[in-house]
């Protein structure tokens, strides 16, 4: 019982981080069919901005996260307009190469400026204690992640299901040509979605800095996880990646907790099985 609560709790916090980081990728891939392996770079950048602002300039956690969101969203939209846009509709291989190039560049720059070691994050005092819920206590930081995760999901859901922007986005994902022919400017829409997705990734990187260590190998080490969330969840959906993130979060935590000597082995096996069973994802359109 004790173990089960622990796994569920830690798995949920982990799943929230995975989801916040990966959801933007689902939109990028679903909307423009762009294989963006460099999505983790935005999360890494967010992590570095957050940690640096907090450690070097003593900026409060919340403000640092906001700064990371804005800075990364701005940079990403510049990249999107100048470079990504030239490869829409290009060969899969070219998109893969281009984004691997971005990963290598980002990793090298980060290593040059911050060094190879993981960046420690000093959490504010309010987040470092325990949260006592009567029957047992939980670490405050992870509880906070779960709450923030649910708030962001609610906002995302509202934005996509209830606003005009969201309706346009859904229309464009469903049928881009049709959406264009009824006058939706998909390029502008995509730039916005790209910026938002990258910003969210940055937010996830900053929020999760204590779970996914911020270091130069970030973008490659966790790449498989981010891509799996999207590939298993299904492209262009909000719900699918959430289910996938939950599966991955619980599965990975349970494996590492119950059979530490096997690590993530079973999770990878399960994910491969799921992908073979549903190649376009659990909630993807075939």
């Amino acid at each position, binding site marked *: 019982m004790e173990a089960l609560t622990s796994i569920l709790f830690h798995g949920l916090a982990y799943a929230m981080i995975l989801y916040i980081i990966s959801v933007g990728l689902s939109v990028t891939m679903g909307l423009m069919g762009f294989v963006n392996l460099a999505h983790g770079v935005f999360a890494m950048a967010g992590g570095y901005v957050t940690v640096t602002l907090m450690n070097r300039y003593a900026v409060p956690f919340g403000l640092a996260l906001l700064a990371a969101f804005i800075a990364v969203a701005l940079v990403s939209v510049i990249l999107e307009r100048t470079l990504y846009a030239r490869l829409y509709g290009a060969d899969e291989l070219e998109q893969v*190469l*281009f984004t691997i190039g*971005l990963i290598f560049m980002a990793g090298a720059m980060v290593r040059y400026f911050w060094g190879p070691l993981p960046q420690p994050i000093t959490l504010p005092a309010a987040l470092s204690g325990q949260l006592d819920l009567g029957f047992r206590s939980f670490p405050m930081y992870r509880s906070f992640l779960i709450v923030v995760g649910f708030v962001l999901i609610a906002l995302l859901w509202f934005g996509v299901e209830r606003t005009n922007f969201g309706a346009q986005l859904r229309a464009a994902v469903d049928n881009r040509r049709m959406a264009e022919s009824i006058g939706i400017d998909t390029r502008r829409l995509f730039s916005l979605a790209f910026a938002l997705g990258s910003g969210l990734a940055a937010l996830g990187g900053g929020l999760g800095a204590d779970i996914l260590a911020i270091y130069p190998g970030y973008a490659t080490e966790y790449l498989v996880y981010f891509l799996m969330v999207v590939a298993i969840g299904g492209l262009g959906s909000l719900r699918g990646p959430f289910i996938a993130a939950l599966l991955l979060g619980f599965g990975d935590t349970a494996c590492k907790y119950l059979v530490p000597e096997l690590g993530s082995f079973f999770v*990878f096996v399960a994910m491969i099985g799921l*992908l073979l069973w549903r190649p376009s994802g659990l909630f993807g359109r075939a």
Partner: protein
Amino acid sequence: MASVRPVRTSLTALFNWRPSSNASPVETLIRRHRLRAIELLPWIVAVAAYYFLPDYLSLGSQILIMILFALSLDLVLGYAGIVTLGHSAFFGVGAYAAGIYAARVSGEPLSGLLVGACAAAAIGWISGLIILRTQGLALLMLTLAITALLAEAANKASFITGGADGLQGVDIDPVLGIFRFDMFGRTAYVYCLAVLFLGWMFARRLVHSPFGQSLIGIRENANRMHAIGSPVRRRLVTVYTISAALAGIAGALLAQTTQFVGLTVLGFQRSGEIVIMLVFGGIGRLYGAFVGASLYMIAQDQLAKLEPEFWYFWIGLLLVVLVMFARGGVLGLIDRTLRLLRRRR
């Protein structure tokens, strides 16, 4: 072939073959298989390097190994058009199999190569059977996931692989019982060169065979190949297995010549790097592997001396520039320049 409408134009451009008007397909294949003088150039360079650059032989062996690895990738990526980010899986399995064989069973090198090739081929065949049913993002993911799976397995099974510390105690006997591995890397160089030569002959024969042609057909338009009765999936699995075996031999060579196997042989970095080397040279043309791997390794050796941290930055930048402006790699650029000059004349 001529009637097949090119679907993936950028790849078609890389493969610039024009069928002559009245030759039968068989004649065309035989003519293309005939050895041209320029194809001997890499071997002349390699032999010359042995005599004139004795200080660089260990780098030379590394280059030869990477060429073989890139060549194996070319069969899959360049000829069959399977975009994979997990080719290091086979390189790594070959390296570990050969390393463990040498540490536990016997230090005989040639049987070690065979063990590496068989282990990698087995993994290639099994994974090919299950993942080549998919395509696009799912396929890309599966290649990545299988490599991650193997890396995790190698990391956790430290009682046999040495885990994060790497595999120690790899002692290799003299090749054929005669040639000892010396400290100057002379034997290693000649050994790698001989294996690469055999690998190249095999790959060259393969891509010029009807089997190789059917791969190109699948790359250009899998649906049409289905329609004319080609067993598409079986062909893909076959080439995937063959390529895995070649990559496994390359890995085994690395394990034998460096007498060490570390977890990095299975890393994403290595998968990415080998794709970069191949693309840098030019894909789907057999010699891209030679040009790309040599230039990459030499540049890495030279630049990494100056600023090791920044090496990956330049490679990343080069990659972005390559994708934006110079599709087709170095050999593609040379082709285009030659064509331009010819038109001038």
